[in-house]
């Protein structure tokens, strides 16, 4: 497979996954604020901090209010990581893939892209924030389903998996970080009823509420939420699951090389990180540091993948 094609597959998939997580995070944050009224003047600042987009935001928006934040994170194409920008990137990469992917996949992606071009701030009034994000999530599920149902399990599938799983592992870590930023100054609330509501909505935004209840019962404990989202080997949005899938795909790609090559140095570290630890341990030693480790590991592995397989000059 050509490096250019592999790169388009990787970035199409990765951008879609990123758009989906952005939608999930925004959705979570918005609903957190409804159920727990803001305690400080800039309740949205945590999101900006997590994405390190404070400066970019300040260039175009005077205040971090709800309307500005929704615009900035969802619609603004001056923000290279807004949901719309990610969808545009995904589709622009996919234009060169029309002969590699199924026509159904192209059609679903192109439809999402064309719809995204029609978005205005009005969508947050009608159909409204909840319906907008629910609809968006459906589009992502449709695309994901078509990908699973129509793409042969060859290099094309694996390079898409690599893009998705790298992004997913990084973003689940990021989402837990958002939650922690929120609670850090207010230790007295930990374990309180507002806190539990918030953790439940984190689970819901990762589509993990039912999976949680099935494994741990309906009592929401921080330790167990972290266990599910980081260390569960069976939950498809956990960091561990994502990294294991990533490892499988990267190994399959490597096995097809004409000559054996050295393993990617970050791969083993990264998957060992989620394989060998438990939530109690990392919460005790510092969850934030652990999440940063995962995010940095994903970035470093992404660089390695780029250098070895995707870079073409």
């Amino acid at each position, binding site marked *: 497979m050509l490096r250019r094609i592999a790169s388009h597959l990787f970035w199409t998939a990765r951008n879609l996954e990123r758009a989906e997580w952005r939608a999930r995070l925004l959705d979570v944050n918005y609903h957190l604020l409804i159920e727990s009224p803001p305690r400080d003047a800039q309740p949205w600042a945590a999101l900006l901090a997590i994405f390190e987009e404070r400066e970019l935001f300040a260039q175009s928006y005077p205040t971090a209010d709800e309307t500005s934040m929704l615009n900035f994170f969802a619609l603004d194409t001056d923000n290279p990581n807004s949901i719309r920008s990610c969808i545009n990137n995904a589709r622009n990469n996919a*234009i060169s893939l029309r002969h590699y992917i199924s026509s159904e996949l192209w059609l679903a992606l*192109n439809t999402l892209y064309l719809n995204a071009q029609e978005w205005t701030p009005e969508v947050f009034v009608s159909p409204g924030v909840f319906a907008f994000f629910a609809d968006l999530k459906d589009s992502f599920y449709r695309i994901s389903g078509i990908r699973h149902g129509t793409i042969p399990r060859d290099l094309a599938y694996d390079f898409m998996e690599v893009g998705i799983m790298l992004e997913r592992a990084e973003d689940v870590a990021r989402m837990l970080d958002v939650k922690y930023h929120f609670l850090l100054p207010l230790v007295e609330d930990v374990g309180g009823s507002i806190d539990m509501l918030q953790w439940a909505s984190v689970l819901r935004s990762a589509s993990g509420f039912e999976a949680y209840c099935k494994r741990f019962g309906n009592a929401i404990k921080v330790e167990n939420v972290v266990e599910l989202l980081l260390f569960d080997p069976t939950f498809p949005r956990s960091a561990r699951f994502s990294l294991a899938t990533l490892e499988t795909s990267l190994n399959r790609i490597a096995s097809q090389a004409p000559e054996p090559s050295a393993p990617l140095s970050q791969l083993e570290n990264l998957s060992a990180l989620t394989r060998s630890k438990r939530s109690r341990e990392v919460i005790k030693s510092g969850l934030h540091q652990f999440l940063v480790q995962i995010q940095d590991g994903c970035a470093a592995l992404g660089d390695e993948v780029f250098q070895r397989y995707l870079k073409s000059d």
Partner: protein
Amino acid sequence: MAATVTETGNAVPVWAAYKSDDSVFDEMLDLSLNPRSGCEPVTDALFSMPSAYFAEICARADAMFRRMGVTFNVYGAADGSERIFPFDPIPRVIDADTWATLEAGLIQRVRALNAFVADVYGEGCILSDGVVPRDLVLGCPQFRRAAVGIKPPLGNFVTVAGIDLVRGVDGRFYVLEDNLRTPSGVSYVIENRVVMTRLIPALLRSCRVRSVERYPADLLQCLMEMSPTGRSKPTIALLTPGPYNSAFFEHVFLSQQMGIELVEGQDLVCVDRKLYMKDVHGLRQIDVLYRRIDDDFLDPLVFRPDSLLGVAGLTAVLRSGNAAIANGIGTGVADDKAVYAYTPAMIRYYLAEQPILPIVETYLLRDPEVREHVLRHLDRYVVKPTGASGGYGVVIGPQADENELAATRERILRDPSAFIAQPVIALSVHPTLIHTGSGSGMQLMPRHIDFRPFVLLGVRPRVLAGGLTRVALQEGSLIVNSSQGGGSKDTWVLEA
């Protein structure tokens, strides 16, 4: 000399308005509106079809093209789909005898043109012998100094040729122009046939129409025969300018049908005078490159330095003989409109044969006497710029107004050698389904058509038994280009 089809028995109103016209050649019906040789089964079928059926097959054809994705690239289209090349389901029939002559004429012509290109970039015998003027060839805009001295495998500069033919009032096929650079359209030939086999299978079978589906396999065979390395399984790739090119569908289609990699310039790299593509597992050497981009963009070291479409060092690779390219660099020198005037002489010179296919009388305006004559009667001629292709810059005298003629005259006087003049050819016509009024009403009407058959050169020549018949859907229009309201028809070459 006009007659109208009389409706018999099963009344067929689609023919009601069809008239014969002795100023043009009708490919399907003679002046008494009787079917020509080979056309009987088709006209019989057309006469007996209920008229509602025509609208139905048009709609079905349309849906099939859309489903197959046989489209132009219009990415901004609001409905997220693309435009399809208008298709007329009434086939154009060429009987076996006519085809045999055409095929022989096409092979003869492409062999001579290829010999000419090889000669021009090799020893230059035809120029030394004064058969074609040296200054005409060296001054031709498509002459590429960089190709001098390149010796392609099999001596083939031309691997794929698309020869545009028109049929005059006398019923003879004339060569209108040669396309020897990156001729396109063959994917429509193949897809048109796929649609026809689903639309009217019984008629197609009973007519014993020759298949066109082998073209990709034949092209692949020719490309493999050009491999300079002698490897049993040469690596072949198709070089495209990318998804925004209007012919991208065809590039995708051919690469898929041949099972070869579709590459862009950024996928390629030249190292040690060898050509490689950048695979995820390392560099993979390419033996033969089927390129669908113009010379000017092929190699920024030699041609346009700003080109991102090609690959630096390609010319040196070709010169070293470590890879082959189809078509070769500089083949445009043989499809130049002024050089065209010498093509019959080339056939005599290289093959010692008489030309089988006539060309259109051509006046080189660099000759003062000829120029004076043409300028005096400019409204009777078609004036064409010599270096262009695809109908660009063509002025049709009888249809041009005073201002246009004056401007053309000025352009000719400024640079006479950049133009040629030809008498206006009355393109033949063919019954074509035309929407009339509102709703699904359809009528058969005569519309102008041309013909582009495809010739392949490998170890031996191969002619695709068929070709692209383009039809001008506007009444009276002579312009068959898809960008200007042209469509296409399936072309049925009958078994002997």
